[in-house]
């Protein structure tokens, strides 16, 4: 390709567009699926029997309070679909757990779905998801 003025401008525009792409790879829903499959071992995941409480709108993505409750669960894993690393945390409940519920605060990079997957005592899995709108993302920059 001959380097004409028009071509030079196009190359410049292309380079500029490339810089606008987000820095760092953000997780895709497929990555989340993969992380969930890792937790479930590929087992089928049902619905119901698990409650995830999240704010509808989080002004600050650095600390988003969440609560999960899944009576009869042995473990609950939390995933954030739009974070660089979808795996947030896993709660494993011991014999002295008073209830299969827990609260914590998490970071969210932007508006996204938060998914909770519970492993029940009989080995089955259930999940639920909530959308959280995030005004300011919480993953540095």
């Amino acid at each position, binding site marked *: 390709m001959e380097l004409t003025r028009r071509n030079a401008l196009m190359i410049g525009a292309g380079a500029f567009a490339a810089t606008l792409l987000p820095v760092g790879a953000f997780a895709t829903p497929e990555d989340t699926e993969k992380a969930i499959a890792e937790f479930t071992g590929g087992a089928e995941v049902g619905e119901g029997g698990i409650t995830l409480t999240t704010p509808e709108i989080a002004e600050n993505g650095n600390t988003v309070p969440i609560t999960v409750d899944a009576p009869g669960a042995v473990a609950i894993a939390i995933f954030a679909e739009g974070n660089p*690393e979808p795996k947030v*945390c896993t709660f494993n409940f*011991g014999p002295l757990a*008073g209830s299969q519920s827990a609260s914590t605060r998490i970071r969210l990079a932007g508006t996204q779905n938060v998914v909770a997957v519970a492993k029940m005592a009989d080995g089955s899995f259930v999940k639920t998801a909530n959308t959280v709108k995030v005004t300011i993302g919480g993953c540095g920059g």
Partner: protein
Amino acid sequence: MAKGVKPRVKVPKKASAGDVITIKTLISHKMESGRRKDKKTGELIPRNIINRFTCDFNGQNVIDVEMGTAISTNPYFEFEAKVPESGEFKFTWYDDDGSVYETSKKITVS
């Protein structure tokens, strides 16, 4: 060991046998995700988080949490525990750098 790490735990002092009590824990920790950049040098700050938290009562496990980088600064947890008898809750946090932070709280069951 990361600087200024201070665990804080809230456990009721007394309970009746078989009660379910609520425990709140907080530990001051930066939880560097490894994705933040140093504003002066522009270099990535290496990851340094607490990756595991456990709570045991008289040697029996209450909760065991695996944590990722998406847990907020100063990790906070609230959960419930059964108390069959008087004893001691032991709380342990495991840092990426190998440090272990511990604290314990006694409870009297009548």
